[in-house]
């Protein structure tokens, strides 16, 4: 044991038990837990909406929900899942908790700003919840004009304001991470020694800071047209509805990298640990994150091939979209090569991670279909697109999030979960996911448009399979949730480094970490993922 002589009496969880000590905390770890609780609630709301409309879609006619209810539910599912789960999940929870721990810092650069970010996130969330309670919003998460700005008869203003506000939380968190990673690394922790999770957070933070203001401006213009009658997107007033799509996707395409890049970071950590290998081609994986962040800003028009945008502009967007696929392919090849001659252990986080690679691969390859101009024309706005982005966002991002949560759970709470049930949950989620979303590729290829609450009977077999799969996946998620939560009560103490992983958070901080993270001064003298270093295997 390395920490036998200086075990402090209090860790971050036991240092204060009052509600106030949590709500006014500036400890990055406690803020991470606040995000975890809030985000889990939002996730459950989004999942409930999905459950309801999946039931409706099981048959081709309307027998559960009315048209307006259906439209409100898929909109709510999209808004909540994108803006309140996918975007902030890994940065908000794992990023907040582990960025300082992984670089050997006491906290983030601006702890009070960090707390403010959480309050801003909550304020945005409450506005959105108010919109839902007040009767919902039916524009789709994309808020396309002039439907949203003129025609929709639902709570566009409240929900738009909610998303507008929560964007500032992303910007401030991004700013905080950029400064923290630049200025607060421990001595000896050079850029090329950083864990890839940090590289991923850094790339994400840059997109957040550059892209999110554009979303804020766009939403503000929609609200200006809706409330004040400005003519910006409405052609009746001389506006251009396609301008909205350009502005929206200028943020929202990079936003898919905001969602997935942190997941890439998690995958690199878990893969290295459970194969006891350095990530193959570390530099390529690190710089591919930056390349994705940069090229990702210039591909937004591939959402608009049928929108009446110039076909020549479409050509440029098409070729750039393929180019963003290259660094992504590099990552997948390198992750696969990492396993070569490793010591592979299929623990729960590793199962999620390998599941991630398979599902993300399918999501990425179907992205090539959609980048192909002629192919896109048929598949655009069909279930093929729905399946594609769920493979990337749920199969990719959510699997990575669950991998990260299981991987770092012992560090966050000092408890081991039941490994058997965690693996059962991972396997059921993997198969349930494929069962849910694979049939949607076929429905989309056959031409079934998305956002239809009633549809032609020829698509019914695929929708029925999809609904059955969703319940299967739901069971997996419940097993996962119960396993993790019950470990807090019945779990065995995890010790400092249960997986024998490299990294400052595992080797210098106790589980759960002390209020100020480290009790000894840190000096880094090893490369990242050095699994030959015997020191990491010493702690039981």
């Amino acid at each position, binding site marked *: 044991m390395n920490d036998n002589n200086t075990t402090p009496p209090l860790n971050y969880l036991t240092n204060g038990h009052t509600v106030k000590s949590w709500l006014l905390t500036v400890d990055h770890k406690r803020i991470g837990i606040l995000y975890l609780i809030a985000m889990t609630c939002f996730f459950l709301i989004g999942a409930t909406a999905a459950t309801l409309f999946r039931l409706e879609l099981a048959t081709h006619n309307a027998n559960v929900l009315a048209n307006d209810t259906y439209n409100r539910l898929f909109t709510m599912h999209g808004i909540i899942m994108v803006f309140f789960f996918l975007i902030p999940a890994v940065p908000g929870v794992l990023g907040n908790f582990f960025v300082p721990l992984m670089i050997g810092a006491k906290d983030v650069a601006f702890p009070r700003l960090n707390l403010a970010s959480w309050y801003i996130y909550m304020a945005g969330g409450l506005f959105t919840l108010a919109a839902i309670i007040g009767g919902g919003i039916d524009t789709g998460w994309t808020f396309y004009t*002039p439907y949203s700005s003129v*025609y929709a008869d639902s709570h566009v203003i409240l929900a738009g304001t909610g998303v507008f506000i929560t964007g500032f939380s992303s910007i401030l968190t991004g700013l905080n991470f950029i400064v923290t990673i630049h200025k607060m690394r421990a001595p000896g922790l050079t850029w090329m020694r950083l864990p890839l999770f940090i590289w991923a957070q850094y790339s994400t933070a840059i997109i957040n800071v550059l892209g999110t203001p554009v979303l804020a401006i766009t939403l503000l213009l929609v609200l200006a047209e809706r409330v004040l009658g400005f003519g910006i997107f409405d052609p*009746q007033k001389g506006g251009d509805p396609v301008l909205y799509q350009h502005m929206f996707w200028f943020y929202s395409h990079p936003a898919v990298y905001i969602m997935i890049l942190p997941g890439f970071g998690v995958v690199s950590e878990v893969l290295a640990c459970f194969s006891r290998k350095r990530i193959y081609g570390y530099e390529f994986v690190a710089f591919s994150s930056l390349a994705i962040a940069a090229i990702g800003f210039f591909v937004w028009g591939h959402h608009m091939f049928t929108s009446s945008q110039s076909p020549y502009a479409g050509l440029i967007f098409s070729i750039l979209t393929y180019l963003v696929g290259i660094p992504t392919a590099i990552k997948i090849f390198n992750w696969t090569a*990492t396993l070569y001659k490793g010591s592979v252990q299929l623990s729960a986080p590793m199962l999620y991670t390998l599941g991630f690679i*398979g599902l993300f691969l*399918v999501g990425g390859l179907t992205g090539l279909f959609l980048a192909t101009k002629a192919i896109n024309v048929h598949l655009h706005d069909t279930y093929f697109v729905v399946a594609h982005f769920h493979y990337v966002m749920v199969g990719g991002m959510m699997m990575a999030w669950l991998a990260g949560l299981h991987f770092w759970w012992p560090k966050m709470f000092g408890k081991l979960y039941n490994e058997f049930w965690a693996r059962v949950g991972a396997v059921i989620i993997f198969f349930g996911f494929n069962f849910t979303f694979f049939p949607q590729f076929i429905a989309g290829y056959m*031409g079934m448009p998305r956002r239809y609450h009633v549809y032609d009977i020829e698509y019914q077999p695929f929708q029925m399979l999809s609904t059955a799969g969703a319940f299967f996946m739901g069971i997996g998620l419940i097993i996962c949730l119960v396993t993790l939560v019950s470990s807090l009560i019945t779990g065995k103490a995890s010790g400092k480094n249960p997986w024998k992983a490299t990294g400052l958070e595992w080797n210098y901080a106790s589980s759960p970490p002390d209020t100020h993270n480290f009790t000894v001064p840190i000096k880094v003298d090893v490369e990242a993922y050095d699994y030959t270093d015997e020191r990491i295997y010493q702690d039981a």
Partner: protein
Amino acid sequence: MNFFAIKTSPIAASEYAREWDKLYAYLMAVSVFFTVAICGVIIFFAVRYRRRSDADRPAPTKDGKLLEILGSVIPFILVMVMFFWGAKLYFDARIPPKDAIEILVTGKQWMWKMQHPNGKREINDLHVPVGVPIKLTMTSEDVIHSFYLPDFRKKMDVLPGKYTQMWFLPEQEGRYHLFCAEYCGTEHALMIGNLHVVSQAEYERWLSTGGTGGMAAAANADDPVAAGQALWEVHCMMACHTGRPGAIGPNIHHAFGTMRELETGEFVLMDENYVRNSMINPNDDIAKGYPAAMTSFRGTLNNNQMNQIIAYLKSVAEDAP
């Protein structure tokens, strides 16, 4: 592909659709290959190199450049094939043939309104003759819709305040799906209809009678060209735009489909969108050598009337079909 007698692929109703299916098959082959290969390698490694003892200390693998180079170059070549093939397929089939029948499509929450060249209208049904290219000139009265014919692999958004175009060549008689693909509000899912591909003779018969689907209308009662000519005269457009000596505006009477020179030195095509925008925002594009003197017809002419004027200008254009 068929399992349990469930249909799993769409009809390929045209030559274009069959070409589309070939490219789709290429993409599918590349995707299946990489999915099987990578998942296979992962499973193989996970079994072959499973942790046998907690004392396992695998030796580090030295990073090589080979994987990174092959991993960039091979995918690059494969996707460039996709890019060029997809772009070629798209651009080859972009411009409608000259002999296409032009049908006006208007999207409206939540219905499709079609108007045939002789003025006959129908709603949510579209009758077309087999073997003749069909050009759709489309606009919307309210929000964005999208005209989607899955069996022809064609789709185009239908926007308010603007015309978009799409064309297809029906090969086989039959009934095909027509969907709205862009979410447009409460009854989006009911903004659907049928494309009826019928024989030439039946189309002629249908055009001249009450027809079977949609709203019946006597032929020529609503001839857009005649109506457009009347509007042209009523609104005194011929005073300014027919090339009379001293006219304040450029002669555009027979110019539809030609390139027009602007004050800025640019050339623009006089097409549906140009005419429409010139009526609504006359000062956007000022013709070379003429003052910005035209007043807007916004509020004076409705959507339908603008369509009629365009139809008239097309009918008198010098290279009119």
